[in-house]
């Protein structure tokens, strides 16, 4: 809310300033020029990816680079036949959905416990949870794999989902949020006969929908883009995720760039779409966390 108000006020100020600086056109042009130049560098790989995926193979490196002479949808068909991208999609969607729901749900539960309940060892446990943020996947990779193996979870959805079912970052984020929800609401629910968990379900959870949505988008993107863990846990082609499948595809079809790009487009479209839909929330989520440290 405040960020929006601030932006609005600033916009008004800046419109004023721009009116005063009307003569500073060259500066504005330069600014836009630089931003556009940089923007094109940012977008170039995406443009290249899109256009190459639509070219016939002989034209991969031929000018005009960014415009195929006709749309060769064949590439996508071929790519989907060469590797089971449909299957990859299914696996990745299941995995991402599982992780997203899990992280949102369980982080919220844990955050509620830390924010609203009193119990012995609360501070210590919270610190321990935070501590897990210091431990990157690489460090726990080998034992985690051995455990997953022992549980028989290699090449399975459980193996992909369960180790990432909770997010320490999410717990931290939501706890901050819950601490700022007035306790009167809790008490009102208590009077109505709700249990402590009931309060979570009926009061806290609905109230934190924006934060949950942010967390959900983070979780989904993380899951969709993840590579190292699926790489280690999955070796059956049928169970591969989109990123893993793409990597293997790239290994096999090394220089068949048109096919490769078709595969890459397939791999990235959902994440890009998800981002474009939730981008305001996503970016603002990062900004709040980044600036407040």
């Amino acid at each position, binding site marked *: 809310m405040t960020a929006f108000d601030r932006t609005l006020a600033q916009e008004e100020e800046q419109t004023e300033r721009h009116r005063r600086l009307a003569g500073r056109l060259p500066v504005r042009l330069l600014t836009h020029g630089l931003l556009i130049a940089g923007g094109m560098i940012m977008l170039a790989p995406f443009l290249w990816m899109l256009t190459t995926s639509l070219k016939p193979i002989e034209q991969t490196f031929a000018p005009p680079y960014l415009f195929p002479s006709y749309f060769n949808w064949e590439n996508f068909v071929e790519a989907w036949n060469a590797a089971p991208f449909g299957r990859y999609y299914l696996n990745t969607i299941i995995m991402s959905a599982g992780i997203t729901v899990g992280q949102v749900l369980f982080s919220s539960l844990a955050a509620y416990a830390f924010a609203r309940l009193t119990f012995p060892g609360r501070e210590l446990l919270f610190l321990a949870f935070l501590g897990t943020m210091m431990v990157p996947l*690489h460090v726990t990779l080998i034992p985690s794999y051995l455990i997953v193996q022992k549980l028989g979870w290699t090449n399975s959805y459980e193996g992909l989902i369960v180790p990432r079912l909770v997010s320490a970052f999410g717990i931290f984020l939501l706890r901050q949020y819950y601490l700022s929800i007035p306790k009167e609401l809790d008490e009102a629910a208590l009077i109505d006969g709700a249990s402590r968990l009931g309060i979570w379900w009926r009061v806290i959870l609905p109230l934190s929908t924006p934060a949950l949505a942010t967390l959900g988008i983070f979780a989904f993107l993380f899951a969709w883009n993840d590579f190292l863990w699926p790489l280690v846990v999955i070796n059956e082609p049928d169970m591969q995720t989109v990123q893993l499948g793409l990597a293997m595809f790239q290994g096999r079809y090394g220089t068949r760039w048109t096919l490769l790009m078709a595969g890459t487009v397939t791999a990235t479209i959902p994440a890009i779409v998800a981002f474009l839909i939730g981008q305001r929330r996503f970016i603002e989520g990062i900004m709040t966390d980044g600036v407040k440290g």
Partner: protein
Amino acid sequence: MIAAWWRRHNRNGDLTTAIIALLPAVLVFGVFNIYPLFYTAYLSLLDWDGLSIERSFVGLANYQELLASGLLWNSLGVTAYYTVGVIALSIPLGLVVAVLLNGELGKSRVFYRTIYFLPVVTATVAVSVVWKLMLDPGSGYINVVLRSVGIAAPSWLRSTTWAMPAVILVGVWKRLGFNMVIYLAALQAIPREYYQAAEVDGATKRDLFRYITVPLLAPTTSLLVVVALIDSFLLFDQVFILTNGGPVGTTDVIGFLLYRHAFRYFELGEASAVAWIMFIVVAAVTLLQWRITRFGARTVT
């Protein structure tokens, strides 16, 4: 006695609820985070291939071998090269774009912000595949452009000199939007009065930037540096796709070294030793970051 303790701490059912609420998290973290952390330490003291029944305890031999073999030092050096490169480029550039964008309004700003942030949210694996195409020494777009302006085009991912710079390039491209967004938020938090007061005193645009903006952005900058540091240290996806460890180990970053030893050579002991070394570095840097941003004080209270 236990019953009494329970009654005392479970006055309003908080303890029971807490146990239920925290059970999933405790289980997941315990099994897949905490326990593996210690198990890695234990594994690093063994000589085991993960398959056979026999595992011999070799004490610190793995560490000694690593330190002596040069592989570890190469990895640490290469990783440091990458880290410094990414930080030195993506942070100033991120600031520049943020400053440029700071003067924009509404739709224009959202438009640019989206464009610059897109690389950040796209999968590293996917973008690395595309960059591999663009970096193709023969006909990749980058070299075509370079040649068209008369610059000698290097063989990028196949050259021992240019492989790592290429990886750094991809890394910078991918991070810039993130740095920009954070800087943008911080820039907008600087009160305009500071600038106005300085302008009244006759300060130039450059002075404003040097003496107001940059110092006030110092906390943001250190935060970005630390985040980039840790992220870069854990580099893996890009290397896997782009270079597979690089021509003659020039892009053999420590994360990749670990993976290779564990899942290609099946030397779990040595890989775990590498993992533990990685942990020490990351933990040290994270603790430093928490100290810098006074994370602890603000969070626990």
